[in-house]
């Protein structure tokens, strides 16, 4: 075999020639291997946000309650009475596709560290997940592994996993999405930040030892240097250690309480390189790191490996020399290794020492803030069309009951109990609503306040129209929050897309980010941070463009919240909102007609605001006895779910108003909420609805679901049958 032509090292590290030239410019010379390794990661898409930064800049990030927007480890939102919520969402898609259990577990580990790096105690996790169809054994394996990994890590940490979503569809077959969100609570005066300050202060590394984990692509540097068969020594999969992370959490918060920390930062992608340089950048200082002091778990590690290792369960703190001993003592109390590995300088450079020897010297600003950015020419994909499908595009189904049963049993609609029963969703004893509803609600101990959290995404809708889709996703998240009675306050987002260097993907990304910004602006829910995951494609097949929104809301009196279950016989069922359901992009379209096509309806954001306000007020006044937003499966599934949850039947009578009954029942459109009120309150409620369309569509009655349109019966079944189809579908598929 002939020697392949040797490519330059920077290229093997994923840098372009121009980028390499940029590094040389910033350095004033050619970088050595240590510096090149550090730059290649800091200027990677993952750390450098090369394709996303120019667009993310335009997202709205300010609001009265926002104590910390993007730019720190997590966003922080004031919830009153001196308390704040830290939240952040992140993806761990690629590692989970390789090793689902450990990939998902370490995903939880990473996002949890981001939260306690802010000084907040994690109080909840959420996990939006996307896989290919469960017909395939590999997809079932991924689902089981991911859920077990999240359970193993989150349960051990004692953080309840209280929400998320799960979607199955072919475009995710080669690229599952494993997004994880963590929510934490912090008193306003205890918020920590990652700003290194005070030249002369010490940099302390604590937590796990450092190994060769996650060296990944950079390992070629080692082979370039040594040419040994060192390759297989470098595991690409990382193993999570939730017990160590639990100790890391407790030790960090104890140091916070004792006021020992100038700054705190977790070690994530690019390890010590990124955490130290980002801390230095935020504080406008420099940092010296002595890699010879880093506790290692493997022998013979190269300096560059120590600098970029992504070993899990490690934190970096800046502390004053006076507090050094107290910090080391606290770590010892929690049986954690802690070592002073460097100090803060006024050089604004990241300098790397191996003992006394200077082996790397890089300008912090260039590393952190000067990664090149790219704007790609957009191309609108051919499947995006201007017109929705005609109302009679598909044949009308003959048996509506059959359709309803099929939709309720669709893995995208059915009960997710199989998943959330594997998560400890009760630990910390704060959940005022149990999983399965629109949004999870946590009481804040020691106050009347509650917070509601949800995650939402809809890749299929975003595929058909990324701008409308992203607008609808934000509106849906807010609708979920409003349906429990809480006021939407802020979001964090995880932007999952294909390869942004392609015009069609960049188009989707740009449209989605702009759409998200529009909706956040209109609904008053600024973006507090997030994460971008590109290159979710394999064999040229990209995932659906999939922005995921994690939203938080506040309710002043948590005792007033409401759930989605039908309550009492005779309660009047109302449909609120004026949107017209459509087949385009609906679960009905895919399950029954086997297609994804057309154009989704746009959300009317002004109407949305009023609709949600009406519902919140109705709940807080005690008028609304249940609220459930219409989403996958349309009005029929919405009503069925509320009936199943309440163990009560419903008699529904709709007017078609020119819409074919299948679209009316099963079609989807953003901006509809089904609520119940006591019979005696119904007229007054409708009269007070103002501009928000409010129509009586039936009553809570008996033990069966009955749907009629214009007087003609379409579907009927006992609630028990609906509950059976909905409740056991996932188990049946997985236990086949």
């Amino acid at each position: 075999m002939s020697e392949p032509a040797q490519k330059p090292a920077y290229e093997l590290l994923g840098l372009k020639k121009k980028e390499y030239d940029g590094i040389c410019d910033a350095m004033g010379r050619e970088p050595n291997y240590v510096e090149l390794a550090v730059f290649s990661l800091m200027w990677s898409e993952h750390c450098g946000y090369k394709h996303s930064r120019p667009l993310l800049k335009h997202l709205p990030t300010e609001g009265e309650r926002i104590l910390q927007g993007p730019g720190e480890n997590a966003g922080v939102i004031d919830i009153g009475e001196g308390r704040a919520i830290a939240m952040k969402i992140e993806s761990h898609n690629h590692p989970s596709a390789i090793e689902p259990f450990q990939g998902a577990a370490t995903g939880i580990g990473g996002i949890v560290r981001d939260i306690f790096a802010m000084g907040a105690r994690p109080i909840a996790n959420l996990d939006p997940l996307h896989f290919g169809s469960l017909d395939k054994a590999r997809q079932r394996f991924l689902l089981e592994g991911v859920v077990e990994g999240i359970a193993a890590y989150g349960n051990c940490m004692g953080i309840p996993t209280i929400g998320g979503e799960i979607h199955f569809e072919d475009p995710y077959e080669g690229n599952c999405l494993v997004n994880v969100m963590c929510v934490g609570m912090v008193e306003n005066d205890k918020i920590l930040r990652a700003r290194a300050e005070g030249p002369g202060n010490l940099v302390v590394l604590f937590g796990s030892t450092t190994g060769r984990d996650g060296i990944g692509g950079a390992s070629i540097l080692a082979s370039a240097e040594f040419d040994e068969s060192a390759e297989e020594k470098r595991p690409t999969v990382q193993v999570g250690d939730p017990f160590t992370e639990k100790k890391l959490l407790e030790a960090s918060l104890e140091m916070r309480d004792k006021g020992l920390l100038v700054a705190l930062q977790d070690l994530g992608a690019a390890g010590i390189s990124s955490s130290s340089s980002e801390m230095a950048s935020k504080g406008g200082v420099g940092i010296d790191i002595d890699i010879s002091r880093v506790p290692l778990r493997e022998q013979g590690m190269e300096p560059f490996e120590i600098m970029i290792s992504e070993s899990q369960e490690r934190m970096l703190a800046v502390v004053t020399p006076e507090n050094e001993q107290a910090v080391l003592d606290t770590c010892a109390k929690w049986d954690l290794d802690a070592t002073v590995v460097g100090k803060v300088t006024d050089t604004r450079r990241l300098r790397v020492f191996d003992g006394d020897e200077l082996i790397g010297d890089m300008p912090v600003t260039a590393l952190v803030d000067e990664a090149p950015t790219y704007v790609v020419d957009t191309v609108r994909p051919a499947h995006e069309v201007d017109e929705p499908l005609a109302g009679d595009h598909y044949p009308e189904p003959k048996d509506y009951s059959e359709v309803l049963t099929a939709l309720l049993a669709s893995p995208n609609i059915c009960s997710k109990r199989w998943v959330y029963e594997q998560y400890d969703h009760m630990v910390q004893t704060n959940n005022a609503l149990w999983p399965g509803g629109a949004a999870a609600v946590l009481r804040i101990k020691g106050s009347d306040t509650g917070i509601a959290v949800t995650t939402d995404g809809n890749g299929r809708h975003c595929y058909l129209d990324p701008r409308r889709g992203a607008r609808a996703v934000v509106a849906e998240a807010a609708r979920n929050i409003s349906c429990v009675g809480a006021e939407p306050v802020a979001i964090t987002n995880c932007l999952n897309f294909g390869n942004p260097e392609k015009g069609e993907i960049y188009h989707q990304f740009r449209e989605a980010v702009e759409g998200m910004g529009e909706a956040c602006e209109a609904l008053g829910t600024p973006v507090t941070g997030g994460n971008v995951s590109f290159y979710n494609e394999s064999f040229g097949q990209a995932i659906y463009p999939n922005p995921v929104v994690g939203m938080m809301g506040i309710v002043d009196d948590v005792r007033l919240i409401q759930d989605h279950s039908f309550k009492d016989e005779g309660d009047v069922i109302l449909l609120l909102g004026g949107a017209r359901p459509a087949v385009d992009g609906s679960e009905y379209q895919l399950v029954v007609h086997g297609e994804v096509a057309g154009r989704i309806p746009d959300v009317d954001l002004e109407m949305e605001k009023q609709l949600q306000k009406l519902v919140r007020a109705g709940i807080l006044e005690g008028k609304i006895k249940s609220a459930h937003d219409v989403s996958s499966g349309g009005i029929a599934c919405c009503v069925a779910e509320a009936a199943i949850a309440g163990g009560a039947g419903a008699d529904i009578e709709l007017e078609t108003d020119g819409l074919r009954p299948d679209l009316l029942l099963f079609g989807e459109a953003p901006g509809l909420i089904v609520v119940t009120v006591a019979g005696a309150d119904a007229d007054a409620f409708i009269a007070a609805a103002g501009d928000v369309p409010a129509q009586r569509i039936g009553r809570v009655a008996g033990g069966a679901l009955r749907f009629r349109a214009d007087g003609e019966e379409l579907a009927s079944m006992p609630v028990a049958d609906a509950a059976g189809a909905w409740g056991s579908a996932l188990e049946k598929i997985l236990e086949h």
Partner: protein
Amino acid sequence: MKAKVYITPKAGILDPQGVTIERSLPALGFEGVHNVRVGKYIELELPAGDGAAEAVDQMCQKLLANPIIEDFEFELVPE
């Protein structure tokens, strides 16, 4: 015949169980123990025959071990 399967964490892969046990041993009065690695030991019985080794190898690859993070070895013991 009987198969004995030994599964160990791959070299270089963190073994949190091993680390935790190692840290706790001194408190029990066992000093100087290191490199604790925790794996699995599986015994099973299967029909004797030429294909037995191949079958066990396949079982390990597909089900018993996770080849991404674990190594395995096995031996066959006639009964």
